[in-house]
């Protein structure tokens, strides 16, 4: 008995996780849950690996509870897809406290993330930029093999045969190439672990508590945005590894010349890894300059400018522009940057705000820990000024460059959410570390971890298409939810959601500081209530592309391709629409109306006449229909050519002006259905002919 107790005390954590793995495996099968061959094996494997790696540590307190919640939720999984999603998410989350326990000690961060490696590597679709990076790697090893799909061109490439990706990052994957996709992803996981270890070391060196530094570094990997690309073939973590290596040396006590050389080398490597990381390089050089004294302070910017000029000359003369000029150094790119900096400040500011509150890619919904981190920034500045400088300045210059360059495309959809924001995270993680002890902040972190767990278990939820709807939200709240209407969206911006959620984010951030966070739990409960009220209320407005098949007959989602690259250069709007161009097409929305009542129906659409009569709409609600005919104005050729002479003049909906019409429709006998059908769309007509419905509001 004594022996058993001794084993339990010493190996309790390990035994618990092994037992939990068995329990989850058996429960999954007894309850007949979906995906028994993937999730039903990989989640137990995650628990098993946690058990093997946790070592001689006791059972983490929250693990047993999470296991219980998993079993309880699993019992009800047949209630709906959202409940199954929740159960699997809790299953992944069950290992997290054990992984945190395993992160203590030497190489702890490597031990901590290994349990999720099989899930990430095996479940996530090899998509986005991943195959393109892999194809470039293949070009170094065995050109033309076609192992990764012979991908030759991609949106954003300057010309065919010249990719817009830099070569250094794919070159680093050459050793992993023989091991295929798992090998390349494993290498990226090691980049992340390496970066986090250096980050933790840096925080410790600057005087942060050992436990705080370890927790912050681990959270960097297990929460969005770091978790979104953890173990995926994207250069974010590799760049962070390079950056932290540079900062560690630059902020250290070595000779000034050596540190200067390292800073220049790291800055150059970051640029070679991805052009946008030049923002980090600028910040790194600026921080080094500020921390230097005397003539050294002004000589660094001068040397940097000279170095950049030398680089551009060398690129133009020796490399034929392949490094920079052919990709981004052309006149149009410079004009684009200049126009964004001077004339499109509102768009740039909108992009920056959206990175926090946007429903699809903003951090507020996926990583609410950021709110506590923002609240902790002043304290970090006061208590760890040097750390703040070395992390905040590069983050600021990186973000400034990112939003100036890509005010609409900062999310780089459809790739994992917030992946382009990763370089700005270290300063926030460092400011979060001391905040973790505050009341309520733990809840924000747990919500962030739960979101990451959901994205690990269901990787398809990572990929949003910049169409205004979040896949995770749709999966949990269902296809009829009114919540979509209340979330800010950069692709179809409306003032009220932006104001409401920005104000709410400011409120929650303030609550993290106010009375040391004692009121934050109340703020979080109020947030749940606010979300509940928004989603439970009756729906009276619909973005047309969000109308589920339940409420429409035929109709076409336009454009058919989900990839936003097709829409990003549209002029009148960049949102998707619902095309009604067949006489059988119809939209049927349930409305609450009494007999004889007059409904005001606010319609927004684009109407294109392409070979047929002028298209129109008929709207009815159980009584006689109201109809209208209209044709949108095509943007003039001259206007386009003034804006950018290289853009051709497509006759597609994004280049036609929008129409807004208010119809008064009498309601018939309840229950009423608002029926919207197209007019003037009988064949024959051209392919663009029809009504492109954008939004329907019923008052």
């Amino acid at each position: 008995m004594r022996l058993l107790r001794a084993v339990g005390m010493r190996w309790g954590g390990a035994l618990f996780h092994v037992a939990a793995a068995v329990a989850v495996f058996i429960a999954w099968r007894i309850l007949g849950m979906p995906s028994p061959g993937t999730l039903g094996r990989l989640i137990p494997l995650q628990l098993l690996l946690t058990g093997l790696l946790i070592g001689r540590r006791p059972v983490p307190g929250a693990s047993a509870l999470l296991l219980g919640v998993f079993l309880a939720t699993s019992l009800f999984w047949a209630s709906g897809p959202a409940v199954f999603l929740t159960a699997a998410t809790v299953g992944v989350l069950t290992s997290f406290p054990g992984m945190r326990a395993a992160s203590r000690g030497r190489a702890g961060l490597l031990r901590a993330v290994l349990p999720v490696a099989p899930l990430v590597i095996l479940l996530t679709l090899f998509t986005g930029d991943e195959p393109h990076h892999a194809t470039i790697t293949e070009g170094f090893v065995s050109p033309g093999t076609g192992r990764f799909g012979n991908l030759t061109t991609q949106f954003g490439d300057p010309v065919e045969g010249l990719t817009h990706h830099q070569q250094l990052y794919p070159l680093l994957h050459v050793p992993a190439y023989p091991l295929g996709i798992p090998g390349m992803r494993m290498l990226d996981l090691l980049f992340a672990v390496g970066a986090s270890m250096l980050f933790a070391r840096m925080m410790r060196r600057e005087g942060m508590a050992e436990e705080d530094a370890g927790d912050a570094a681990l959270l960097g990997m297990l929460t969005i945005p770091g978790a979104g690309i953890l173990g995926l073939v994207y250069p974010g973590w590799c760049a962070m590894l390079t950056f932290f290596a540079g900062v560690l040396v630059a902020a250290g006590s070595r000779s000034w010349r050596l540190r200067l050389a390292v800073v220049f080398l790291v800055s150059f490597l970051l640029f070679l890894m991805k052009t946008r990381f030049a923002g980090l390089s600028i910040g790194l050089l600026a921080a080094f300059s500020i921390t230097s004294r005397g003539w050294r302070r002004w000589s660094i910017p001068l040397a940097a400018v000279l170095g950049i000029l030398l680089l551009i000359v060398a690129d133009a003369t020796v490399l034929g522009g392949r490094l920079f000029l052919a990709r981004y150094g052309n006149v149009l790119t410079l004009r684009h940057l200049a126009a964004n900096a001077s004339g499109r400040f509102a768009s740039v500011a909108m992009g920056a705000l959206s990175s926090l509150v946007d429903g699809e890619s903003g951090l507020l919904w996926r990583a609410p820990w950021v709110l506590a981190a923002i609240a902790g920034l002043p304290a970090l500045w006061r208590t760890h000024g040097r750390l703040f400088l070395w992390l905040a300045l590069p983050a600021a210059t990186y973000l400034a460059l990112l939003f100036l360059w890509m005010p609409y495309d900062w999310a780089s959809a459809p790739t994992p959410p917030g992946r382009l924001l990763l370089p700005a995270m270290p300063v926030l993680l460092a400011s979060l570390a001391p905040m973790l002890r505050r009341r309520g902040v733990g809840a924000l972190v747990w919500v962030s971890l739960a979101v990451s767990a959901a994205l690990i278990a269901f990787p398809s939820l990572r990929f949003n298409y910049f169409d205004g709807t979040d896949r995770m939200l749709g999966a949990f709240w269902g296809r009829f939810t009114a919540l979509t209407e209340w979330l800010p969206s950069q692709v179809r911006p409306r003032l009220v959601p932006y104001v409401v959620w920005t104000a709410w984010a400011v409120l929650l951030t303030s609550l993290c500081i106010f009375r040391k966070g004692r009121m934050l739990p109340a703020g979080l409960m109020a947030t749940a209530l606010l979300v509940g009220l928004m989603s439970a209320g009756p729906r009276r407005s619909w973005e047309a592309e969000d109308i589920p098949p339940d409420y429409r007959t035929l109709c076409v989602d336009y454009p058919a391709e989900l990839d936003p690259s097709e829409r990003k250069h549209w002029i009148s709007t960049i949102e998707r629409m619902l095309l009604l161009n067949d006489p059988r097409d119809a939209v049927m929305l349930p409305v609450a109306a009494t007999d004889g009542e007059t409904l005001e129906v606010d319609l927004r659409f684009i109407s294109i006449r392409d070979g047929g009569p002028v298209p129109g709409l008929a709207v009815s609600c159980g009584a006689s229909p109201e109809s209208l005919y209209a044709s949108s104005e095509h943007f003039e050729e001259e206007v386009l050519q003034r804006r950018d002479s290289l853009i051709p003049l497509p006759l597609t909906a994004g280049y036609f002006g929008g129409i807004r019409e208010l119809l008064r429709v009498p309601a018939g006998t309840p229950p009423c259905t608002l029926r919207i059908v197209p007019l003037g769309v009988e064949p024959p007509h051209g392919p663009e002919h029809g009504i492109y419905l954008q939004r329907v509001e019923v008052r």
Partner: protein
Amino acid sequence: MQDCARELQLPLRSEASHRIALPAAVLVASALLAAVAGITAWSIALALLLPLLASRRGDWSRAYAAAAVAAALSVASGGGAAGLTAAMISALLALLAEPSRVRRLAFVAPMAVLVSSGSFRDALPLAIAAGAAGIPARKDLRLALLAAGACACLLAGGLPGAYGTDASPWVARSVARGEGACWPDTVTLDHSAPVLLLDLSPVEGMEVELHASGGGVRDGDPVGRLELPGGTRWDIPPRDTSFTFVAPRGTARVVLSRAWRPFEHPVVRFCSARTTGGGR
């Protein structure tokens, strides 16, 4: 006991001002929910559950904190099946964690509302077990009773499930294709979403080719069924299958027909359907 409350940083002890303010705020919240969502089983259950959770005096244990989180999730859900399930789990966790017998029995009330209103199918044994579990003081005994209730659910009726506001069956997206139409999206049906509807009215009289497959079972018996308006039915076996038929007016249903059985994970995959030009 207090570790998780510290981890989640939830209130460790009720302060004097909170004794009135918190339950009052929660009551207002419940009233708001009921006003917006209507008087439903979900809003009534939450109106019972939230004040009970908020009026807890003394330290919050880990399970109690988790019950509060589950209740918050239920509130945020807006009344879908996930929200009903979260309310049920919140009540179960609070029942486990609550030291006072009276309050434990009070936590059975929201469960009773959910089950008696018909919002949950096949969950009666669990509700009865929860009622019994409210009595004993020993936590492990309460846990054993609840586990027995869960097993009884499985033995008696199969998997318990909730009916939320999002309970309607899936509807396949249709796209016009010349004079015909196609249903291009793949939809996987399982016990959490066992029915798919296809509106055939726009292609009435045309020949339709439908591809589906079954799987996740250990025998060759049918997994699902294709039901056409007018009563025609075909079984979907556990392999790839195609069906060709002339579309009648109305809505076709693709249904997962297998009942729950342990160690089986039946799924029906609707691959696609399209008109082929025949018919009329």
